[in-house]
């Protein structure tokens, strides 16, 4: 069960990290600010996923990282929505 959880939440971490890297790479190549805000969003979502991983898989009973997870997710969404509203067209 632990390995299953490990893989599932680990996959979420890997995916958000991949999105972050690809968006940063594209931003470096084109300078398009929409990509920067999107990349920053995925930085925060990766932090969020990482903290979730620690919270649920690594130290399930010792810590409750919920407040920090929420701050990370909220910051990420603010970056993304700012980019979509001001830089998407």
């Amino acid at each position, binding site marked *: 069960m632990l390995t299953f959880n490990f893989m599932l939440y680990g996959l979420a971490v890997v995916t958000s990290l991949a999105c972050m890297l*690809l968006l940063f*790479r594209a931003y470096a*190549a084109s300078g*398009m600010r929409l990509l920067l805000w999107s990349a920053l969003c995925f930085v925060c979502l990766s932090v969020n996923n990482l903290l979730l991983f620690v919270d649920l898989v690594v130290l399930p009973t010792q810590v409750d990282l919920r407040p920090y997870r929420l701050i990370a997710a909220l910051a990420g969404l603010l970056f993304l929505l700012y980019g979509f509203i001001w830089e998407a067209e």
Partner: protein
Amino acid sequence: MEDSAFSDEFCRFIQTCVTSVDSAELLLKLSEQPDVWFEPAVLARSLGPNTAISDADLSRYVEQFHAGGLIVVGTDRRIQYRPASGTHAKHVEMLAQAYKERPVTLFRVIYALRDLKIQSFADAFKLRRK
């Protein structure tokens, strides 16, 4: 390739001043009667029964034409075609020609340029860049 006939300069003109087919038709209609002052809403309606331009879109197009040096806006909010330079006029002529001779290509280019930034988000996820 078909699209190579559109120069970078013309594409930049399209990207800033002509962000939809409706916008292109409005501009062309304006340029056909350069001595006339038009009420924007009336002009939009004159495009025909199949075209419906929202007020928000209409004011955005007028703003883009104005910022692009293609029209003047009177105190009564009516507009008149007045290109700021020969280059501006030339771009509108190229637009008219493309609209007449290669409309499908033109429309494709208009929307591709409009969606350039959004498309770049999707293209960021291609691992191998061409």
